[in-house]
């Protein structure tokens, strides 16, 4: 009986959502800011990926907020897990040879792919967050497949703090050097569609990629260590 009632409620909610979505004119521009980004984004920021020019340049301050949210989440998780009492570690059952070798073989390739995604964030789709998540999934593969292997926690902390510092310092340099907003692009734009272009966007994205990768990898590391 309860499931029937909840199903009917669900249908009503779906009907309401469908009614409201039906009125939205999809595919038409409702604000002019999107057209502005598409028309002027390339020449103003030097990044051929419009999404990147919005995320790092026009909306750089929001990105700082996103990075901070992730950072706070990691701090909260470590605080919650740190209060648990350490228990004795049982013997870890090793993975089979095929899995172990496969993980060891795939790990550098996935790491390289993640690094490629955040280094080429201004040229191809993707960026710091996506690349960082892929790097973290490479760490996840190692944690799962090669049991007992751990990435050094101090090193991951150093990388994380380095990423955050670079982001903040570059943004503040832009603020002082003539710009009147955070993350003013003060480096030369360079030739469009080349790796060394778009001013500081690659630098920021490398910093975000390092930070997100080490943070998400750190979350997996803490949770796995706690569960073993």
């Amino acid at each position, binding site marked *: 009986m309860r499931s029937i009632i909840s199903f009917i409620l669900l249908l009503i909610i779906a009907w309401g959502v469908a009614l409201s979505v039906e009125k939205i004119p999809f595919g038409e521009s409702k604000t002019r800011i999107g057209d502005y980004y598409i028309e002027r984004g390339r020449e103003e920021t030097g990044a051929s990926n419009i999404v990147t020019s919005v995320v790092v340049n026009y909306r750089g301050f929001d990105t700082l907020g996103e990075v901070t949210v992730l950072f706070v989440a990691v701090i909260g998780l470590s605080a919650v897990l740190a209060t648990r009492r350490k228990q004795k570690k049982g013997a870890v059952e090793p993975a089979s040879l095929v899995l172990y070798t496969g993980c060891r073989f795939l790990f550098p390739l996935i790491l390289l792919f993640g690094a490629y995604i955040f280094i080429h964030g201004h040229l191809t*789709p*993707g960026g710091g967050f996506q690349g960082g*998540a*892929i790097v*973290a*999934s490479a760490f*996840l593969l190692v944690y799962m497949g090669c049991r007992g292997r751990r990435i050094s926690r101090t090193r991951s902390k150093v990388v994380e703090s380095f990423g955050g510092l670079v982001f903040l310092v570059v943004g503040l340099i832009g603020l002082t050097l003539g710009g009147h907003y955070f993350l003013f692009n003060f480096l030369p734009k360079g030739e469009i569609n080349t790796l060394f272009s778009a001013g500081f966007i690659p630098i920021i994205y490398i910093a975000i990629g390092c930070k997100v990768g080490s943070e998400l990898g750190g979350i*997996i590391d803490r*949770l796995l260590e706690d*569960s073993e």
Partner: protein
Amino acid sequence: MILIVGLLVLLMLVAAIAALLFKDLINAVIASCMVSLIAAILFYFLQAPDVAMAEASIGAALVSAIFIIAIRRTKRYEE
């Protein structure tokens, strides 16, 4: 094209309902991972490869891993 998208959406719905109905929570996690993967493919079809990448790596890989770690600490079967 529209046929493929329709098929994918149907598959996504089936996977989402399966994730709700499975009593074995590992199976439910795999079904929800499938939902994320199909969502990533749909994002790609909608010309949002950035979002597709984030959805595939976070939604399919990391979130499933975190769920599985949590299930290992608790119970595997739903009553």
